[in-house]
């Protein structure tokens, strides 16, 4: 067995006990990268020289007794939306093809401080404005989308190159690729972690977080990324909990909300079945299933788009006026829409968000978490990014995927996507566990319980 095939926990323990060196682990990741990257194109930029340099430093530190913790010497991939000092950061856009930041994003700086080793920068749907990442293939079926916008990160984790890759999530962009690639993906509570140094899509809806092979990996990385940052006005000054200790506490006595609307409309049978099976698994472990009605369901998607679009346009206005031809046509069209939106429509969407938050708080009074399919369908073909429903209607892949993931962005609630099943065609499906504000430890416990009682979490795609 190659080192990259071991779990992060196993690798970490071998590094801690000096059974293996971070250099060995990094070389294994780079060898796997060389195997799969020609097929997947998950990376914009790879950083093998930097990785080996960081790994050698880690090796020396550990040898000197300066062990930093369970992420020390562990390889990391970073979405190309995150600034990395001295390393080209393009957001997968021609607008920033030569952009080299002078400072690291806050998340990258924290993970470097924890001792992680950068393997490279992963592809995003251009500026995170879409959910298919056309540049990149799905490790389970390279002619299919890995999802997006953090599609390169999903592909990098699912193919085994890294255990953890960073993503960002404005309408589902961590959880969508996690579900389609068969990885874990954690979108934290809005305000849990700083977005400073990450190109914005929508300041009001953006979140940063990890995609990972196993649940505990996301817990480890999210805890490091978390914390108040006065330079990000969205962050909240609350204590950062230990997200790992107690992750095995189980779910007995917990109440799980099972939606009877919204998450049941226009959803593929296999995705619905995967969520039902996950719910049954958790019920067998002592949790109680409680049917709930999603409040204000008809307002969720209009609110998401009405907030996101003008904020994205405001962020990109200089490019849109000065060099619109450098955007892909899809991104440019979305940005143009945002320029035509009334300010009053934007403000009213923010007012609706207030009401949606209050209604969801009421719904959560009778439950601990909500469990639902992460996405309405599995991975679409890259050459035909549409979902065809039984009634003959055709839905674009991006709006179809965002439908079920956007509620956690509009409400700001933490959501963990966990692999739940494979379709008859061998494509991964996920379930999401949505928790109360700042209840990341609780949703991680649910995810861990699913991982321990199923056989679909932690798999590496063969990439053939």
């Amino acid at each position, binding site marked *: 067995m190659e080192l990259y095939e071991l779990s992060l926990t196993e690798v970490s323990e071998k590094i801690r006990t000096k059974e293996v060196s971070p250099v060995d682990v990094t070389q294994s990741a780079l060898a796997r990268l060389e195997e799969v990257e020609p097929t997947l194109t998950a990376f914009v930029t790879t950083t093998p020289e930097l990785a080996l340099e960081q790994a050698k430093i880690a090796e020396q530190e550990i040898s000197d007794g300066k062990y930093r913790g369970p992420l020390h010497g562990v390889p990391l991939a970073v979405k190309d939306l995150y600034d990395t000092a001295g390393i080209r950061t393009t957001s997968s856009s021609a607008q920033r093809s030569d952009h080299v930041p002078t400072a690291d994003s806050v998340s990258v700086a924290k993970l470097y401080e924890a001792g992680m080793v950068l393997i490279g920068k992963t592809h995003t749907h251009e500026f995170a404005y879409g959910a298919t990442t056309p540049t990149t293939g799905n490790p389970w079926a390279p002619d299919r989308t890995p999802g997006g916008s953090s599609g390169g990160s999903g592909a990098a984790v699912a193919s085994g190159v890294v255990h953890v890759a960073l993503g960002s999530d404005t309408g589902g962009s961590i959880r969508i690729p996690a579900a389609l690639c068969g990885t874990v993906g954690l979108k934290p509570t809005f305000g849990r972690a700083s977005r400073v140094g990450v190109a914005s899509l929508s300041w009001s809806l953006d979140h940063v977080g990890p995609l990972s092979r196993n649940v505990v990996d996301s817990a480890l990385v999210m805890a490091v990324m978390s914390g108040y940052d006065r330079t990000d006005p969205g962050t909240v000054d609350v204590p950062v909990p230990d997200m790992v200790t107690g992750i095995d506490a189980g779910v007995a006595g917990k109440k799980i909300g099972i939606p009877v609307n919204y998450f049941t409309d226009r959803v593929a049978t296999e995705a619905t079945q995967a969520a039902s099976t996950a719910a049954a698994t958790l019920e067998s472990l002592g949790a109680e299933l409680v049917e709930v009605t999603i409040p204000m369901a008809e307002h969720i998607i*209009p609110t998401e788009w009405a907030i996101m679009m003008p904020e994205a346009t405001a962020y990109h206005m200089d490019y849109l006026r000065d060099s619109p031809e450098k955007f892909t046509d899809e991104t440019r069209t979305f940005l143009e829409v945002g320029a035509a939106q009334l300010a009053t*429509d934007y403000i009213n969407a923010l007012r*609706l968000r207030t009401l949606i938050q209050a209604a969801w708080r009421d719904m959560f009074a009778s439950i601990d978490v909500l469990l639902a399919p992460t996405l309405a369908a599995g991975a679409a073909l890259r050459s035909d990014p549409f979902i065809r429903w039984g009634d003959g209607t055709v839905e674009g892949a991006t709006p179809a995927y965002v439908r079920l993931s956007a509620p956690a962005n509009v409400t700001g609630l933490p959501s963990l996507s966990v692999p739940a099943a494979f379709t008859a065609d061998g494509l991964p499906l996920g379930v999401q566990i949505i928790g109360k504000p700042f209840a990341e430890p609780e949703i991680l416990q649910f995810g861990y319980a699913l991982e321990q009682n199923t056989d679909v979490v932690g798999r590496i795609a063969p990439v053939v």
Partner: protein
Amino acid sequence: MICMSDSEFVPSEAQVSAAFSYAGLTISPDRLAANYETYSATLALIRMASPPGLGETVPAVAFKASWT
């Protein structure tokens, strides 16, 4: 009590063109025609987030006056 709008708003091509001009964007007639369906459908979706009956509801905004 909020409700869905009774009639769906769909901006005309002339209205979309005027909005782009006011926003300082140069959109050719060909581009406008080619993408009008996407522009109008998306703006119609967005308008659904502006329903009647919002009353005294305040927007969910992030501004804090604190300096720390």
